[in-house]
């Protein structure tokens, strides 16, 4: 269970690789932000990109006084539709009380550094078109439209 304590903005926030012990906090924060509880999904993500690194990627958390205040997850994807290997961010969350204080930028910088260390020179992501908050966040980090287009169709 996540601790029911409040964020103290004065408490310094550290960024580090996620551990198995962080998963309850990650699950609780994701649930608080999205309204969806997905414990199996996050445990699978940790298996893939956490300390064991079953696949190349990074699962980083922002933690203050033992409480998870944010996280970011990314992987290195290679040769999808001819795209050379690149970093791909597929999850980022920051607790509402900690936003607009640069924490998201620190997480973004840290995951980009892990991508550079993995030898790639580009980072990509995909997001909901109407999610202005996360879209504005990625734009503020310097991301712009890339050369790929996302398409979909209904299967029913």
């Amino acid at each position, binding site marked *: 269970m996540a601790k029911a304590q409040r964020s103290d903005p004065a408490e310094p926030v550290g960024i580090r690789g996620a551990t198995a012990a962080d998963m309850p906090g990650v699950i609780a924060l994701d649930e608080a932000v999205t309204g969806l509880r997905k414990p199996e999904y996050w445990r699978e993500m940790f298996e893939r990109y956490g300390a064991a690194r079953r696949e190349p990627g990074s699962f980083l958390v922002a933690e203050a006084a033992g409480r998870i205040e944010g996280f970011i997850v990314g992987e290195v*994807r*290679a*040769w*999808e*539709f*001819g*795209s050379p290997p690149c970093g791909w961010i597929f999850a980022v969350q920051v607790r509402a009380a900690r936003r*607009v204080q640069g924490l998201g930028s620190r997480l973004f910088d840290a995951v980009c550094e892990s991508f550079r260390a993995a030898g790639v020179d*580009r980072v990509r992501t995909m997001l909901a*078109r*109407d999610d*202005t908050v996360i*879209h*504005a966040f*990625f*734009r*503020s980090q*310097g991301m*712009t*439209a*890339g*050369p*790929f287009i996302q398409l979909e169709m209904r299967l029913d």
Partner: protein
Amino acid sequence: MRLQKATAFALYAVLELAANPARQLTVVEIADKYGISAHHLAKVLRDLGRAGLVEAVRGVGGGYRFAGNAKRLTLMDVIRLFEEIGAETDAAAPLVVGQDIAAGLRFVLAELDAQTVATLRSISLSTMLKLIGRRPWAVMPSQPPARRSARQQR
């Protein structure tokens, strides 16, 4: 897409002033920098003043200065003061029987409009100023390799 003249002038002025909120600039100073009509720009700045994005500074050395929050105001917030983006192609418009071609075209054009609106809403003035500082247009954009049609094995 092309912006109307007044919209482009508004973006020039707001971004120029937001780049240094403590600085005040006259209409002529901004118009000269961008090679645009001072008369037209004066009208645009009055509209921006009424919207609270800039404020007039009276007296000797007067002019305009930025009065908004550059981290909150987006390109869309400025643009919609002067024109409506995406108003001409509404995919939700009622389908007229026998006009499937028109409905199909509206659907595709609405796709483009939705992308445009999402982009303009996501870029704050602060983000835009950072982008201008990086000059990404001076770098060759990355291109997807041609004629790849299937996901390859990692």
